[in-house]
């Protein structure tokens, strides 16, 4: 056989086979244990998985998560931009915002917003130093849902601001100079150069945040809003079937998280257009990498 015609094969090393075996084994072991162990009470899990209160809780969790995540991200981008403003006091204010809202527990923030009336029984909305304006019944304004939305959004914004700042850090200086040289306005530059290019680093962290938020929303139970976790807790506080009901919650969270995985990978792919072949990080050299297990 002529040497030039010999095919270049992709070697599946022993390591790869071992890993496959391990992979299958782990899944089998987990599946076996889940199925055979009666303590998981799968019948109870099945019974409550689609119970009406649970579904209501799921919907509320999804709604709250997306609303607060959306608002929080928008606010977070604004704060990240302000955080790198050339004007010192703006930077200071943005920094203080981030420190404060990241620094205090969400639980405390939620309780604070909900009970703002305990501290400020009547707030005047109006034009200062004039008589125009009216007293507002704070308790009527701050319904549990409003308080939850405000609290979670403000908190989320602080975290997102830091993530976005990290993304901005990853945009090469040459890109910004290029945009400046074309005479782009700050806004255009942000929208068309900085944000798209920081996406590959921002998305994984945002995914974390979004998934975290799914669970963070469970804190709203202190306001008497029944999200997913709270609704299963209400059930098991009555029936004491704690573990199967926690499994119901865990399964729902898992479903929601996995459902997010697909759009996330699509977005990641979209924004990694233009990096060679659009593949994930080539940690490995092209040559040795694709061939061999570690």
């Amino acid at each position, binding site marked *: 056989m002529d040497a030039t015609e010999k095919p270049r094969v992709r070697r599946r090393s022993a390591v790869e086979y071992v890993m496959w075996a391990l992979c299958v084994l782990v899944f089998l072991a987990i599946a076996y244990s889940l199925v055979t162990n009666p303590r998981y009470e799968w019948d109870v899990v099945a019974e409550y998985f689609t119970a009406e209160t649970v579904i209501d809780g799921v919907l509320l969790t999804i709604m709250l998560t997306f609303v607060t995540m959306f608002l929080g991200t928008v606010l977070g981008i604004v704060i990240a931009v302000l955080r790198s403003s050339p004007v010192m006091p703006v930077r200071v204010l943005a920094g203080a915002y981030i420190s404060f809202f990241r620094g205090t527990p969400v639980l405390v923030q939620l309780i604070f917003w909900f009970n703002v009336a305990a501290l400020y029984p009547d707030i005047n909305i109006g034009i200062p130093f004039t008589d125009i304006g009216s007293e507002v019944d704070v308790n009527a304004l701050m319904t549990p849902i409003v308080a939850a939305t405000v609290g979670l959004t403000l908190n989320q914004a602080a975290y997102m601001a830091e993530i976005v700042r990290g993304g901005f850090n990853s945009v090469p200086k*040459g*890109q910004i*100079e*290029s945009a*400046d*040289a*074309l*005479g*782009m*306005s*700050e806004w*255009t530059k942000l929208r*068309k*150069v900085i944000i*798209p*290019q920081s996406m590959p680093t921002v998305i994984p962290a945002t995914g974390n945040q979004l998934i975290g938020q799914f669970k963070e929303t469970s804190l709203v139970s202190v306001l008497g809003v029944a999200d997913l976790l709270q609704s299963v807790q209400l059930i098991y506080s009555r029936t004491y079937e704690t573990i199967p009901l926690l499994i119901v919650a865990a399964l729902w969270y898992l479903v929601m998280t996995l459902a997010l995985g697909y759009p996330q990978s699509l977005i990641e792919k979209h*924004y990694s*257009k*233009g*990096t*060679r072949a659009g593949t994930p990080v080539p940690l490995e050299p092209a040559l040795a990498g694709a061939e061999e297990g570690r």
Partner: protein
Amino acid sequence: MNESATKQQPTVEPPQAATKGGLGTVYGRQLVKSFGHRTVLQDVDLDIKSGEICCLIGPSGSGKSTLLRCINGLEKVDSGILRVNGEDLGYEETETQYRPLSKKQVAAQRTQIGMVFQHFNLFPNMTALHNVMSGLVLVKRVKKQAAAEHARSLLQQVGLDGHENHYPSAMSGGQQQRVAIARALAMDPSVMLFDEPTSALDPELVGEVLGVMQQLAEKGMTMLVATHEMGFAREVADSLMFMCAGRTVEYGDAREVLAHPKEERTQQFLEKVL
């Protein structure tokens, strides 16, 4: 390799008297720029007419890129007068001081100044076509269709038809450089700054790009070109500035300087050209 500053520089007279000038002019007096303690430009004078091609040559690290970056406002000079297109760049002069312009005003000035970077700096998330269109659509607010048409014709001019939809990462060095040139040209600025625009190009392309540049010059576009290609300088330049360690060593008519360099440093440099 002599990079150390040659301290006693003879005073160099710019070839032309100082004016405020109009569109397409670059006027500089005693420009100084330092990074921390390192002085990178020292008392540089410039005087470029509309439609003139001026080549900047000089050893590596002599400040050519920095000078071009100053003229585009990417770096700000520490002192001296710098007027591009007849306006003080990034500042307005008052009786006692220079006050910075607002960001909007600076951006407006910049649309009249094009720049091709030494490292190209193409937007990696845009195809060749979109890179070229970016300035037109995002800054000049040209309709997408018209911009795409114009961009296509520019890419053709630099020999890149068929590469419109490729991302920069899938292009060779020379291809990227030509996209960068087309992107800057698309804005149709009055003053173009080229930082080694042909460093990644093969001799054939150098000829073609040079042709494009000459055409533009005939249409009245002013060009400042930092380059290491003496052949290039000889063929196209009207004036030529030889820099060394941040100072102007010789500045005058291009063919004149290349043929009969007055300063010893210039002679020494030109001797080495292959």
